[in-house]
């Protein structure tokens, strides 16, 4: 069997000089100076460091941070009907939904059913956003908050009330196309 031959598509890389010797002595100075020139020339490019946490990196619109549950703006009812599709889609099984029937006098959501319990265990979540994709009502979306660390694992189980509430600190967001 003949070995596979890509023909023209191959380029050989340069070997570089043999280290040591006279050339080595030259390079110890010459090439080091050339390197220093490269380094110092970068000074004019300014700093790239971001002073986190004082300064926060704005995220892109598609960024998948902490989940948010939504209400209808006009009626104030929850968009979530407790269908559990998000729980089915979740690869890390971190969503728990227990549905219940709406009381017509005292509605929680628009349809027949609503989520009586909606919990996301954020210490298990991998932020893949499949829940957002699965949701047929846009009731759950991935928000933009990425600061979620806590001192206690149990505090990382977010309940429905926490997910419905506005985050305390808003994460800066870039505009579309920015």
């Amino acid at each position, binding site marked *: 069997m003949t*070995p*596979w*031959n*890509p023909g023209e*598509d*191959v*380029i*050989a*890389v*340069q*070997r*570089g*000089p*043999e*280290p*040591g010797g006279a050339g*080595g002595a030259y*390079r*110890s100075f010459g*090439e*080091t100076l*050339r*390197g220093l020139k*490269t*380094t110092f020339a*970068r000074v004019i490019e300014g700093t*790239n460091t971001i002073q986190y946490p004082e300064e926060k990196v704005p*995220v*892109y*619109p*598609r*960024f*998948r941070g902490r989940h948010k549950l939504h209400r209808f703006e006009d009626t104030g009812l929850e968009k979530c009907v407790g269908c559990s*599709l998000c729980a*089915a*889609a979740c*690869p890390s099984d971190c969503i728990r939904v227990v549905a219940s029937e709406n009381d017509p006098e005292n509605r929680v959501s628009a349809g027949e059913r609503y989520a009586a319990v909606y919990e996301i265990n954020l210490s298990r979540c*991998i*932020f*893949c*956003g*499949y829940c957002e*994709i*699965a949701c*047929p009502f846009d009731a759950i979306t*991935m928000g933009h908050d990425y600061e979620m660390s806590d001192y206690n694992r149990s505090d990382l189980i977010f309940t429905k009330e926490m997910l419905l509430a506005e985050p305390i600190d808003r994460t800066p967001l870039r505009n*579309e*196309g*920015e």
Partner: protein
Amino acid sequence: MDPVSKVSDYRKLEESVTLSTVEGPLGASGSDGASTELFTLNMGPHHPATHGVLRLLVTLEGEVVRDLKPIIGYLHTGIEKTAETKSYWKVIPVIERMDYLAYFFNSMAYCGAVETLLEVEVPKRAQYLRVIHMELNRIMSHLVWLGTAALDLGAMSMFWYCFRERETILDLFEQSTGQRMHTRYFQIGGVIEDIPVGFAAKLKYLTDEMPRRITQYEALLTKNEIVLQRLRNVGVVDEKTLLGLGVTGPLLRATGNPWDLRKAAPYCSYDDFDFKIPVGTVGDNYDRYRVRTAEMRESVKIIEQAMEGLPEGPHITEDRKIALPPRHELATSMEALIHHFKLVTEGFRVPAGEAYHPIESPRGELGCFVRSDGSSKPARVHMRDPSFVNLQSLSTMVEGSYIADLIATLAMLDPIIGGVDR
């Protein structure tokens, strides 16, 4: 099991590692008995220079490495097994987390295998978008390698430079996919959404900038005497040995063998693009360095071509039995709602069969084997990860060399322990 027997079992396991007792020329020439003594050293699993939780059991004779045994498994995640319990689309975010610097490649290998089983046509636009992201990922992975490898050699600034460019690429990923790592952007049949407005401009900026940056890196390293001393003619292994060990990727190409799956068995429209395969001559650490930096330039070329020639059309297959229906239809079409529901909860079924899909990852041949039993969950998923195979060549590379070179060689080998252990 009681703790005492656990400890003794572990000891037995340790003792089963046969340590080399070969005494080399150094020991033979030593005048006093003490210098001939072999010294066994544990490097890792938590050592800053092992690039992850890798444990190297090194037998030293003085400063010379006489034997080396990599001991792996400290980062075992059971991802292959986990994949068997999830429906096909839910495997993607899981499998991405194996080789954590090549997530687009992981999902590409997996999606490719499943697409082969499904015999589904991936739209051209999706293929180009995949190529763009994969090549960005290759540059990103090589940047991490270059930064950390240079750091291992003592070059601090390289690390900052490389990670600065890497940041730009991660920003691009965030913009198009929503996440900087483990993006689950590739889905079976295409990509999950089209690139957003503004992505092309940012990408253009990067592809314009990148060759200049690579030139800067090279100015710092290529002819630097320390780098030359540390890399050139160090860790030489010939092509035949590497082929025997199954090593692929830049390591193999550094010996002059131009094996690159993008050319050898083109997938994902790679045959549409004009690019070269950089190869080395000797197969030492220096060649490995040069091959990878040259590859970055080639990747930039591919991205430019792909972005320019990006065809119009759907970004994912229009087969309703595989891809989710468009979201706007969910509110009006019963068929769309049912398909959405079934795809999300149960997932599509894949015809029974087996498929192996190899692709060229930054580290070599990354193949995914999927066996389907006809259900909606894979019966077996196995990854042929290049890091695992390449790591075997480490002892051949370093035997007889100094322990300091071991660090440099390991850095140039670029193993990712997430891929080794899976």
